[in-house]
C-alpha cells in the first residue's frame, strides 16, 4: 500500500470507527462503577486502543510490523465483548436498548467476533496485506455505537 493510499485508507477507517476513541477511563473511575459496567468498559477500552493503534498503522504514522499482533488482540478482545454485556446492568456508555434489543445486539457482536477472528487468521496465514484488504468490513464499530452507545 502506498503512503497516499494509506492516508486515504486512514480517513475511511477513521470515519467508520468514529466514536470509538472516547477517553479511556482510569482505574480510579472504574472503582466507583458497578462491577459489570467497569468490566465491560475495560474490554471496550481495550478495543478502542487496539483499533486506534491499527488506525495509526494504516495512516502510516506507525510502522506496520505489528499488524498481525494488533489484529489478534482485536479478535481476542472481540471474543470477550458479548459475555461482558450479558449481565443486564445499565450504566456507563451503554444504552438500555442493548438489553431491549438483545437478539440484534448479540447478533452484531457475534458477527464482529467472527469477522475480526477471520481477519486475524488471514493475517497469520496469508500476511497482513491480505487481512487489511477487508478490515473495514470487520471493524464497523460505528454501526453498533450509533444504536447502542450514548452519544459522545
Amino acid at each position, binding site marked *: 500500500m502506498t503512503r497516499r493510499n494509506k492516508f486515504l485508507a486512514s480517513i475511511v477507517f477513521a470515519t467508520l470507527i468514529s466514536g470509538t476513541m472516547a477517553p479511556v477511563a482510569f482505574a480510579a473511575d472504574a472503582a466507583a462503577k458497578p462491577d*459489570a459496567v467497569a468490566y465491560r468498559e*475495560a474490554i471496550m*477500552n481495550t478495543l478502542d486502543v487496539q483499533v486506534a493503534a491499527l488506525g495509526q498503522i494504516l495512516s502510516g504514522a506507525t510502522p506496520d510490523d505489528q499488524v498481525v499482533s494488533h489484529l489478534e*488482540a482485536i479478535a481476542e478482545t472481540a*471474543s470477550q465483548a458479548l459475555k461482558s454485556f450479558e449481565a443486564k446492568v445499565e450504566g456507563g456508555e451503554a444504552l438500555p436498548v442493548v438489553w431491549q434489543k438483545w437478539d440484534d445486539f448479540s447478533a452484531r457482536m457475534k458477527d464482529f467476533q467472527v469477522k475480526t477472528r477471520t481477519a486475524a487468521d488471514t493475517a497469520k496465514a496469508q500476511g497482513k496485506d491480505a487481512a487489511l484488504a477487508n478490515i473495514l468490513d470487520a471493524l464497523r464499530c460505528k454501526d453498533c455505537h450509533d444504536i447502542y452507545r450514548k452519544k459522545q
Partner: protein
Amino acid sequence: MNRLVKFGMALAILVAPAVAQADDQDIMNYRKQVMTTLGQQAAAMNMTLQGKAPAEQFVSHVKTMHLAITQAKKAFEPKVVGDGSIGSAKAEVWANWADFSKRIDEQVVKLAALEKAAVEGGAAKAGPMIQASLDCQSCHKMYRVPKN
C-alpha cells in the same frame, strides 16, 4: 537571495517543529495504546479472579495481555521522551535502555508461561503464578511518571 527563497526557508523553520511534534505525538499515542491494553486487560483479569466478572474469560484476558506485552518493546523503541504527564514515559527508559528492554523481554517470557498455564489449567493452574508474572510496579517506579 530572493524573497521567495527567504519565505520558503522561514516557513520551513516554523513548520518543522510542528511536523516533528506530530510524529512524536504519534509515537507517544501508540505506546500509550499498547500500555493501556495491558492495564485494562489486567484489571479485567483481576475481576474474573475476584468473582466480579465471568470466570471463563480469564484465559482470554491472559492471552491479550501476552499479545500486548509483545507489542510493548517495539512501541518504546523510538526515543521520544514522554510529555511529563502522569503515566508518561521518563527519559530513564532510553538512558537505561539495556535494563528497560531486558525487563520487557522478561515480562514477555513470564506472560508466555502464564498463558500456557492458563490454557492448560485455567485460573486454578495459572492463578498462583500471577503475582510473579505481573511485575508491573517495579518497572513503573523507575520508568513512568508517578501519580504524585
